């Protein structure tokens, strides 16, 4: 899906449309007719709301304002407020000024913690599944994917129950394994354990990525492996010189989805800790702060400012990742420069 994004085609010129034959014009009309539901939906539910969000960020606007009240234009006031806001934390100089940790800092910390799991856990599972000595690969593949269809709230409750400090199986197991009672982790209630808790609660997400990576692994031509074996390559160099480059598009796809998802992380803390930021403000993620600004404090203007900033950050990160792609992502059929 991503290769389309890395090779931007040229925009058509108006002159080329004028030169079209009548058959080509009919084809053009039919094409636009068929894609018109999406064009309309894109304008109504994506493009115009994005522009509106941008405009809101320059106004003073509350959701309680009447329909006919004229909102006040405040220039960059909201952005100045954003720079000064220690809770949002977009200005690293303010990171340690607020009583609770800054939301952006929390988000980055958690992303750094969670991203390796989101990439390597499915990769390792896929490599295990792809092992030629494994029997029952199809059954395992289905069973590892299956929890992905469990409703998000239910999977949070299931893992939440497993991680309950008193009645959960994980602490019972740790106790049985000899961990003394006073050093059993308090999981979601402990500042130091809450991020591992969230990672465990999200672990069922790896089923999807595993399936995609496994399909990528199965698509690697076996001749490449045979040739490497003839040359006497060791498994490590086979992995880095054949397997990894061949599945790099799949890893890239998962990396992008993971990062974009982690910047927007907020549903788990919303369900587990009721969006309160407990324990100790460690779970007031950036996106959660944004939603609270809008839905709880009803501040449309500042909420929109936070949203545009988030959008710009995600855009920047994706553009940077795409620009690195040509150095390490290998698309078959393309010469690698």
């Amino acid at each position, binding site marked *: 899906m991503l290769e389309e994004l890395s090779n931007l085609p040229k925009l058509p010129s108006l002159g*080329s449309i004028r030169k079209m034959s009548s058959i080509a014009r009919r084809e053009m009309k039919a094409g636009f007719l068929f894609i018109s539901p999406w064009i309309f939906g894109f304008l109504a539910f994506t493009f115009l709301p994005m522009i509106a969000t941008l405009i809101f960020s320059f106004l003073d606007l509350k959701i309680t304002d009447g329909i006919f009240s004229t909102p006040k234009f405040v220039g960059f006031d909201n952005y100045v407020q954003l720079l000064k806001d220690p809770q949002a934390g977009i200005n690293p100089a303010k990171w340690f000024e607020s009583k609770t940790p800054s939301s952006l800092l929390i988000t980055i910390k958690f992303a750094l913690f969670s991203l390796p799991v989101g990439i390597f856990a499915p990769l390792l599972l896929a490599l295990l599944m792809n092992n030629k000595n494994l029997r029952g690969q199809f059954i395992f593949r289905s069973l590892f994917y299956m929890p992905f269809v469990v409703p998000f709230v239910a999977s949070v409750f299931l893992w939440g129950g497993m991680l309950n400090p008193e009645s959960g199986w994980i602490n019972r197991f740790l106790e049985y394994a000899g961990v003394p009672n006073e050093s059993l982790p308090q999981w979601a209630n402990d500042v130091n354990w809450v991020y591992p808790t969230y990672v465990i609660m999200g672990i069922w997400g790896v089923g999807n990525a595993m399936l995609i990576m496994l399909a990528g692994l199965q698509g690697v031509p076996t001749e490449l492996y045979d040739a490497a074996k003839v040359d006497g390559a060791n498994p490590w160099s086979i992995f880095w010189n054949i397997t990894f480059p061949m599945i790099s598009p799949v890893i890239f796809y998962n990396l992008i989805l993971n990062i974009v998802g982690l910047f927007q992380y907020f549903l788990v803390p919303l369900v587990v800790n009721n969006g309160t930021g407990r324990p100790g403000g460690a779970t007031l993620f950036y996106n959660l702060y944004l939603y609270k600004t809008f839905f709880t404090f009803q501040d449309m203007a500042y909420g929109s400012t936070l*949203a545009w900033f988030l959008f710009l950050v995600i855009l920047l990160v994706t553009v940077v990742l795409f620009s690195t792609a040509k150095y390490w992502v290998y698309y078959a059929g393309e010469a690698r420069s």
Partner: protein
Amino acid sequence: MNKNLRSGISTFTITFIVLAILGVYLSPFAFMVFTSLKTREQISVVGAPIWPAATPKFEYNGKQVDVFTVSVGKCAGFDPNSTATKSLALVAKGRQESTFVDPKDPAKGEFTCQVSWRALERPWTLSPTWENYTEVWNTIDYIQKVGNTLFYAVVSMIGTVISCILVAYGFARFRFPGRDVLFIVLIATLFLPAAVTIIPTYSFWQRLGLVGTWFPLIVPHFFANAYNVFLFRQYFMTLPRELDESAMMDGAGPFRILWSLIIPQSYPVIIAVVVFHIVFAWNDYFGPVIYLSGAKDKWPISYALSTFNGIYGQQPQLIQAGALMAVLLPVILFFVAQRFFIQGIVVTGVEK
């Protein structure tokens, strides 16, 4: 070492490793089932097994007394060399010596054994409770919640399937200027954070007075989405164009070609989109939490379940029973349609 033997050992090792990982990975399902079959008391008993267990009680002189497993060799009136055990009712607790009666032979009367009652095992028996399910069923009005969810899933599924087929057909079969740019814009929307559109969109529905109705959740599905358009388009592009072209020569219009040539060949991908969408709608939490949190009679199952955290905070058995009732449909649907699921995911993730 013999080659067959060696490959047999590595098969055994790797299969064992994968089975062990799978066991841990799926263990929350067992936790859910076991916990949902317990009573609140069974959860808090120290030393109880993980499955729903109870110890038999024995009524002795009008009192309920606990039954323990005692090695009879330590008891007065039994052969001291015996290693057999018996389930005995504990009448008087003691550190070195406790008094018991035999529930099977109460006429024998009380006797003492040289055991500390604290060190004794209990004869746990399986004792599941089904009341948690009925309690959840009644408290959240399960039928209504499932009805709501299915309504949302089916209506929005119809919208998604129709609109995505039309749009994908447009992208797959017609040449028009700007097509490739528009397709890239479509794919790029996958990576767009919802936050950047939600504030005006919510305000829009609110001004129309439609927050708390199905409209904000269902209407957008009638305007296609990137994921499913991509799936349909990839599939349509694999269908041979020659048939389309000869039908066109015979005077068939584009709608006719779509309806009588493309769609009949596309059942696998249509089924994949239908099951994906039903699972998506069944599990959707973000939409309902934003638009329906104030309208209890319209809550879908996922949102109703999330309210359990508040109402049943100290009642894990009810939370797990509710989770089980929310998990069943998507899991069954997955096992029935897994071929289509797996194919669909592979297409979006690997094809370029």
